[in-house]
């Protein structure tokens, strides 16, 4: 079953197509890789799926029924979609713990005004922070973390949202091997829980290891799709986009 489909999706910047009539379908419960050279439209696609950018034309279908032509960022959460950013974006002036707690905060103004976070919230926060190894740093300001820790905190924040679809934009970039291992385990665990992961990644080894299916993009268009072991064997793709 397709959890997200794009139909003739178009996004232009100053007349130049960043996404050009893209139609792809993401299977539920799988790890789907989006690969392609820099500027091929991978991040733009994620930005469209997460409502950060407005769709110029075409539509996104969520769960086979919900057709969306204008998606507002704060509604993305209610569609069960969450994301991380290529350049880590945290709530810098808040503690590690608050970065997680704010995600599981009551959205109703009156209850949020008069309620504190209770044990239930702290349990979720502890669970995700333990998973990325940041529980001991829970009282530190996010701004004071190292690059790798920041990246892990962003992933923990996404996990705390208990979403159905996780859009990870280069989650492994710049991480030490042990941190890469943590992220890799998280991605596989999400799959085991029947969650959907969309992974933008340049490391072909990781793509082969983790992804069930991949889409290869170039200049905003779909170049190839299929299982990584077959697509990545194709000579023209290796030569054109991975240089080896």
């Amino acid at each position, binding site marked *: 079953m397709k959890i997200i489909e794009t139909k003739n999706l178009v996004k232009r910047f100053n007349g130049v197509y960043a996404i050009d009539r893209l139609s792809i379908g993401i299977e539920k419960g799988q790890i789907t890789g989006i690969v392609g050279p820099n500027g091929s439209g991978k991040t733009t696609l994620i930005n469209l799926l*997460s*409502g*950060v950018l407005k769709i110029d034309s075409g539509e996104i279908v969520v769960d086979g029924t919900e057709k969306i032509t204008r998606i*507002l*960022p*704060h509604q*993305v*959460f*209610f569609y069960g979609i*969450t*994301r991380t*950013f290529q350049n880590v*974006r*945290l*709530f*810098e*002036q*808040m503690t590690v713990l*608050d970065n997680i*707690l*704010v*995600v599981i*905060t*009551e*959205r109703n*103004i009156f*209850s*949020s*005004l*008069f*309620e*504190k*976070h209770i044990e239930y919230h702290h349990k979720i926060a502890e669970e995700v922070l333990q998973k990325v190894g940041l529980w001991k740093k829970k009282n530190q300001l996010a701004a004071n973390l190292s690059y790798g820790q920041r990246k892990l905190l962003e992933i923990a*924040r996404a996990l705390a*949202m208990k979403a159905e679809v996780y859009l990870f934009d280069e989650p492994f970039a710049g991480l030490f091997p042990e941190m890469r291992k943590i992220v890799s385990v998280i991605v596989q665990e999400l799959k085991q829980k029947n969650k959907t992961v969309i992974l933008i990644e340049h490391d072909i080894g990781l793509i082969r290891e983790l992804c069930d299916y991949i889409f290869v993009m170039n200049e905003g268009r779909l170049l190839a799709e299929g299982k990584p072991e077959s697509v990545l064997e194709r000579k023209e793709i290796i030569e054109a986009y991975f240089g080896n």
Partner: protein
Amino acid sequence: MGILPQLILNSIIAGAIYTLVALSFNLIYSTTKFFNLAHGVMAAIGGYAVFYFSKTLGLDIHIAIVLGVILTGFVGFGVDKFIYLQLRKRKASNMVLLVASLGVMTALQAIIAILFSSRFKTLSGNIDTQKIFTILGGVITQTQLVILLSAVLIMAGFVIFLYKTQFGKTVRAISDDEEVARIIGINTNKIIGYIFFIGSAVTGFTGILIGFDVGIEPTMGLSLLLKGVIASIVGGVGNIYGGVLGAFLLGFVENFGIWKISGEWKDAIAFALLIVFLIFRPRGIMNK
């Protein structure tokens, strides 16, 4: 009676008023990131609303104050919803928002002047003759005591609101990164609307207190806002404690500055302090 205790008391009272303006200005600025010139005029709206409710309609002064605060909150909320929000949706730059707020300020001031005339008015005629207290040789009025108490309570309220409630975390998230706040499901425009209500209501209340202490006039907001902004910048924009520190520093520098010279120099001294900080410590006392 020595002049020193009185100077200290005056400084503290001025600091308390600036604290209230700095806190509410900071709250709105940190979430919207634009310089809302119309923020000060909310003080005049609060003051004139109480004047209207108590003197024209003859309502009980306490009810008039409550209504005045709520009304000011709604004016702030309305200005955001019908003007600033529409501009933000159209991706207006902060400069456009600043100019729009200048327009809002001018319009609101003009409306107040049309409805109530530009003449200076005082609210204190309606309450019993003010009690006067002597503290360590300095004189302080009942209203001024209320100002001090209000500043302490509202500051404590802000700290609890921002750091102890779930809503406060949401607000801090928006001031850190509004786009990410949206991604995690926060309806930022709605929250900013509430922030305008709260910020404007606090400034409206400040205007009411000033109305009892000194008096009100339609243009009272701008100079008050500028003092609040100086306090914010001196203390560190976006930092609650910085705002309070800046407010009291400004109160003391202003009042001690005119110890030996004419009181007309007060504003010049305040802006000199601002310039000194802008040159030597532009991010304020608290922000590194």
